[in-house]
């Protein structure tokens, strides 16, 4: 044994050094990544992002969550491993350096002359240990560098594809988020952390996670609005009001109803809703209201419609109804708006008509009794019929013009929208002996003959698609003459809503 050591001493020292180097890197990794590890916290990353991307005019800054490991934490770990390895290896050299070079443990020459082979063996051992430990560190460094490179290339591409798929889903399925409180419409809402309720304004795949995001509180939820919407509560980015479950993931259709004072907008809104709900009940398709108070209002209005009693006039501020057709992932959120007719003519109430700016289809309710030519046809019974119909007082051109001006001022691309022109009170017209056509083209001709050629021309020029309907805002069997649900069903079907009982064959083809 002694002979072996004497003959191969340096080789043994080198091999022992190599093995000890592995022990060194093991101790370093244990200390740096486990026992005394340092964390790059969400708060640090948030502060960094806040500096790089200050909040915009909406006051929304970066979200507070754990960043990807490879983004910052990997660098922290790597730096700490290098620092600790340098310290540990430096400590190993302390005694030999003090002894062999600084003479703190006896004269240096005595060590080198009388114990020369031992001194050299110690040097060989330490150098081999250093070689082995630092080689191991550089392997660890290379693994981390590869992980970082993969994250910046392959995973970045995956995240881009996921974001693109989400954008395509939003465009095709109309899944923007509409707040019924402030009428603000965004591509996706903020989502509240399921644990600490702090808002996350952008849950798309990115620096805070590819498939899942870890909130600063430790709770995990999926990235992408289509997934997060089912595990976290949606919140309006502007007014901070909570939104219905699935907001940002399900189809979201917004249909405003506009027209002159007393044109029959509210009546039409509830009657069309009544028709849709009756159809849903027949087809056993769930139709619910996220807001219980709203459900109660609709129930009362349906009772009035069925009893053929008058609905009350819309109070200033208007009516906004949100309903959910079907359940959970299969559901569609449908919003209908009705502002008081006066709101359209008062400039200062433009803010209350914000819902017009982000609609997917519009309903223009036209009171036929407000058309002078129709009134003339009534002859002697004009006064009596007009009073019974509670006819709108203004020219139909006026309400239409005000809304179109508002849309133009807001930069809304009207030419991409669909318009349903609803000639209301068709039952009263027929009762007065005036015949109203049923088909869209015929209704259009009828309006032109009634002297509204300018209005009809303007409508045809400004909208992408227009259909004309004559309705009686009463309890009318679906798919029968004057059914008030037909215009609503047309607008919903054109936006991909699967209607109860299937997509109807509309009896009113376009002009």
């Amino acid at each position, binding site marked *: 044994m002694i002979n072996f050591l004497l003959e191969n001493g340096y080789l043994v020292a080198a091999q022992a050094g190599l093995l000890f180097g592995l022990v060194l890197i093991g101790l370093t990794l244990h200390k740096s990544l486990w026992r005394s590890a340092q*964390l790059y*916290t969400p708060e640090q990353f948030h502060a960094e992002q806040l500096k790089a991307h200050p909040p915009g005019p909406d006051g929304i800054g970066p979200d507070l969550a754990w960043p990807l490991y490879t983004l910052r934490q990997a660098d922290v770990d790597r730096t700490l491993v290098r620092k600790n390895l340098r310290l540990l290896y430096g400590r190993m050299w302390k005694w030999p350096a003090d002894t062999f070079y600084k003479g703190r443990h006896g004269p240096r020459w005595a060590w080198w002359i009388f114990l020369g082979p031992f001194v050299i063996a110690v040097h060989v051992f330490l150098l081999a240990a250093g070689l082995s430990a630092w*080689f191991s560190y550089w*392997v*660890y460094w290379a*693994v*981390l560098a590869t*992980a970082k490179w993969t994250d910046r290339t392959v995973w970045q591409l995956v995240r881009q594809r996921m974001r693109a798929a989400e954008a395509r889903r939003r465009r095709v399925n109309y899944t923007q988020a509409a707040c019924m409180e402030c009428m603000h419409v965004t591509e996706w809402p903020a989502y509240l952390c399921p644990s600490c309720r702090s808002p996350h304004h952008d849950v798309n795949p990115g620096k805070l996670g590819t498939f899942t995001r870890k909130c600063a509180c430790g709770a995990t939820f999926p990235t992408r609005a289509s997934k997060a919407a089912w595990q976290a509560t949606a919140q309006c980015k502007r007014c901070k009001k909570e939104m219905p479950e699935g907001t940002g993931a399900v189809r979201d259709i917004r249909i405003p109803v506009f027209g002159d004072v007393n044109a029959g907008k509210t009546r039409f809104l509830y009657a069309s809703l009544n028709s849709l709900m009756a159809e849903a009940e027949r087809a056993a398709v769930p139709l619910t209201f996220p807001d219980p108070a709203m459900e109660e209002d609709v129930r009362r209005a349906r009772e009035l419609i069925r009893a053929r009693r008058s609905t009350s006039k819309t109070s200033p501020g208007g009516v906004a109804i949100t309903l959910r057709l079907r359940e959970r992932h299969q559901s569609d959120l449908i919003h209908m708006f009705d502002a008081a007719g006066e709101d359209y003519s008062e400039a200062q109430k433009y803010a209350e008509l914000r819902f017009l700016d982000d609609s997917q289809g519009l309903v223009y309710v036209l009171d036929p009794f407000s058309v002078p030519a129709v009134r003339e046809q009534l002859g002697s019974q004009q006064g009596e019929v007009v009073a019974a119909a509670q006819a709108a007082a203004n020219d139909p051109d006026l309400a239409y013009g005000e809304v179109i001006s508002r849309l133009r001022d807001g930069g809304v691309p009207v030419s991409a929208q669909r318009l349903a022109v609803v000639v209301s009170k068709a039952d009263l017209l027929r009762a007065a002996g005036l015949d109203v056509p049923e088909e869209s083209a015929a209704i259009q001709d009828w309006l032109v003959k009634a002297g509204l050629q300018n209005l009809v021309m303007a409508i045809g020029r400004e909208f992408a698609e227009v259909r004309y309907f004559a309705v009686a805002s009463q309890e009318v069997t679906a798919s029968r003459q004057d059914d008030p649900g037909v215009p609503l069903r047309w607008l919903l079907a054109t936006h991909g809503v699967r209607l109860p009982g299937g997509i109807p064959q509309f009896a009113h083809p376009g002009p």
Partner: protein
Amino acid sequence: MRTPQFILTYRLVTVVIAVIIILLFALGTAGIGPLAGLVGPSAPKIGI
């Protein structure tokens, strides 16, 4: 602050990969494994 699980997992995975590579090199120097041809006794000699 408690270290999140995903950070611990990442650390473990990177260390395990590094250990495997180091072991492959160590075995390779002894003439065993896929790196034997690169760093083992039978590796092509480079030098003058």
